[in-house]
């Protein structure tokens, strides 16, 4: 028999939990009914009975034409929202013809260099009826501006648009490392989006504060919880400091968590997150509206748990992780495809991932009961323990002067690196079993067909970029970029300036370069 039992995060667990473990729990104070403060049991009184979660499959590859076709297929298969994956040049604000874009165009997502690409990406998709999530951070305002102009051209008013822009730069510095500018000017772009949307695009979720990437980088569940919510606090504080009304922008803040393999720990994490955020908003920021207190979140199953070996096992892993997200009360969900340790998913693999969610929603019966694990001695204990550990991190980061200051010192980055290394060592020792990798290995591992993105996507994008540059009014572009720089040097909201630049087909590289000239680029000090 194993001598020590612990969660995937290394948290020790007892063999049995009893009423003694939850003796201090007060139902009204600590849990409340679903829909009641502190929302531990969920933000909706009737859970998924009123509305099932949004099945939002993250997708993007190659050219905007390729991805547009994938979106139409996902919507036809019963997907209920879109989620755009951009390629690395787009995420890093580089045009396809930049030196650093070599070999990267269309590889990890769809390439979008200008409004011309965005028009193709949403061709034939009514932006007034679909909701769209866009995973973009440093160039978030530029991409949002493109989306707004496409909507305008479709005749859809901005007040009707609904969706999410990730716009979470802090977790880029912490984990995913797709940043351009230093933290402080980057935060100003974030709050510019908050302010602009509050007035002009009121149904838009202006940020998705993300723990997903923090977890993928190696964080434990408690670190994911702590750093994500502490990022959330930083955004709210910067919004208030920028003169915004917390009751206006706070309800548009959404969250994005990982759905990892440790079943109960994940469910406890979501429950703790709702309780902690409700207290943060009510007690730390004195928000008075329940809409400001409620934590809404998207979940994605853990890419890092997928194995290249015996890839069909990934279907099972993903289904179990998705079940944890559903029992934890996610508002929307992405399920990974079985082939994603090897490549971007094929159409067949992406459809199977969507079917996994449909089976959960319609065959398992879990949507009929709200927070079915509430009151479990174990889940309530774990919820409290995760909250306590995360609150200790809040104190540490507060003492450092906040998250921006902590990031500048490399604190969360180093904590995550430590956890990642400890996990890998546990795998090497065999303390952590990964089926098909360090146990139950199959020498005749099945190879599966995968998606291969060749150079033709890059060629198409380079050709379109050349056509756009030849056809547009070059003087108008130069003027728009000059006004953008002027706005960035001063205190103007940059969003209307991006919209103007996008309208005259300024490219993402040109807009980002204009601001690189003003703010410079961030470089991380590499440490191991």
């Amino acid at each position, binding site marked *: 028999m194993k001598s020590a039992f612990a969660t995937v995060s290394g948290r020790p667990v007892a063999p049995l939990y009893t009423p003694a473990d939850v003796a201090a729990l007060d139902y009204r104070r600590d849990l409340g009914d679903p829909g009641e403060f502190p929302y531990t049991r969920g933000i909706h009184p009737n859970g998924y009975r009123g509305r099932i979660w949004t099945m939002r499959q993250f997708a993007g590859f190659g050219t905007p034409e390729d991805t547009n076709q994938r979106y139409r297929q996902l919507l036809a298969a019963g997907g209920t929202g879109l989620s755009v994956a951009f390629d*690395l*040049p787009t*995420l*890093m604000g*580089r045009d396809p013809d930049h*030196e*650093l*874009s*070599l*070999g*990267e165009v269309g*590889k*990890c997502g769809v390439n979008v260099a200008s409004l011309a690409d965005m028009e193709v990406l949403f061709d034939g998709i009514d932006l007034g009826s679909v909701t769209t999530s866009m995973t973009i951070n440093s160039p978030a305002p530029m991409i949002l501006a493109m989306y707004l102009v496409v909507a305008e051209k479709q005749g859809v008013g901005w007040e009707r648009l609904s969706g999410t822009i990730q716009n979470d730069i802090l977790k*880029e510095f912490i984990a*995913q*490392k*797709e*940043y351009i500018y230093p933290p402080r000017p980057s935060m100003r772009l974030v709050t510019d989006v908050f302010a602009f949307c509050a007035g002009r695009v009121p149904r838009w979720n202006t940020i998705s504060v993300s723990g997903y990437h923090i977890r*993928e*980088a*190696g964080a434990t569940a408690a670190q994911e919880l702590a750093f994500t919510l502490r990022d959330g606090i930083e955004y709210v504080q910067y919004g208030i400091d920028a003169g915004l009304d917390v009751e206006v922008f706070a309800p548009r803040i959404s969250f994005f968590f990982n759905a990892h393999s440790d079943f109960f720990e994940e469910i406890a994490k979501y429950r703790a997150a709702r309780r902690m955020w409700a207290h943060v908003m009510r007690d730390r920021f004195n928000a008075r509206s329940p809409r400001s207190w409620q934590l809404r979140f998207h979940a994605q199953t853990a890419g*890092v748990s997928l*194995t*290249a*070996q015996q890839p069909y096992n990934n279907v099972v892993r993903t289904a179990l992780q998705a079940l944890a997200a559903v029992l934890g009360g996610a508002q929307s969900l992405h399920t990974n495809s079985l082939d994603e*340790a*090897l*490549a971007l998913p094929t159409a067949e693999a992406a459809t199977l991932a969507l079917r996994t969610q449909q089976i959960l929603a319609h065959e398992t019966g879990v949507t009929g009961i709200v927070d079915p694990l509430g009151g479990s001695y174990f889940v309530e204990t774990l919820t409290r323990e995760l909250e306590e550990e995360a609150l200790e991190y809040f104190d540490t980061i507060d003492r450092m002067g906040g998250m921006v200051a902590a990031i500048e010192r490399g604190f969360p980055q180093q904590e995550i*690196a430590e956890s*990642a*290394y400890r996990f*890998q060592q546990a*795998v*090497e020792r065999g303390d952590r079993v*990964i089926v098909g*990798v*360090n146990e139950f290995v199959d020498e005749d591992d099945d*190879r599966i067909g*995968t998606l*291969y*993105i060749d150079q033709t996507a890059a060629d198409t994008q380079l050709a379109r970029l050349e056509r756009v540059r030849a056809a547009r009014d070059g003087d108008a572009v130069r003027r728009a970029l000059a006004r953008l720089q002027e706005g960035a040097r001063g205190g103007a909201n940059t969003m209307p300036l991006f919209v103007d630049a996008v309208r005259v087909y300024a490219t993402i590289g040109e807009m980002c370069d204009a601001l690189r000239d003003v703010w410079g680029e961030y*470089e*991380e*000090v*590499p*440490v*191991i």
Partner: protein
Amino acid sequence: MTKIRVVIAKPGLDGHDRGARVIARALRDAGMEVIYTGLRQTPEQIVAAALQEDADVIGLSILSGAHMHICPRIMELLAEKGLRDVLVVVGGIIPDVDIPKLQDMGVRGIFLPGTPMQEIVDFITKHARSRVGSL
């Protein structure tokens, strides 16, 4: 005793550095001298680092699919600088069809997802350029 000197680099635009950092630490714990270049290094910067650090090994972490553009350039630059004996290994997401092509251009070790750290340590210890092995 001379330690094996390894430059670990992340070329391209990708920022996912978990693998690079974990491997860097594993090699250091195994007694090697590890220099981590940090993110977004061009092939020119990586080869310059290898030259300056007198590296025996270059380890590249590439997940984005840009390997067929980055690796040939690095091999070409190494040849130009007279560093053909530097052991080049790549870890990351490499489609099967690209593996023989990378081997043909001189990439000696290709480590796919799920590879134990010890296997990489052993490979480098065995194949790092011979002046180390002969000591």
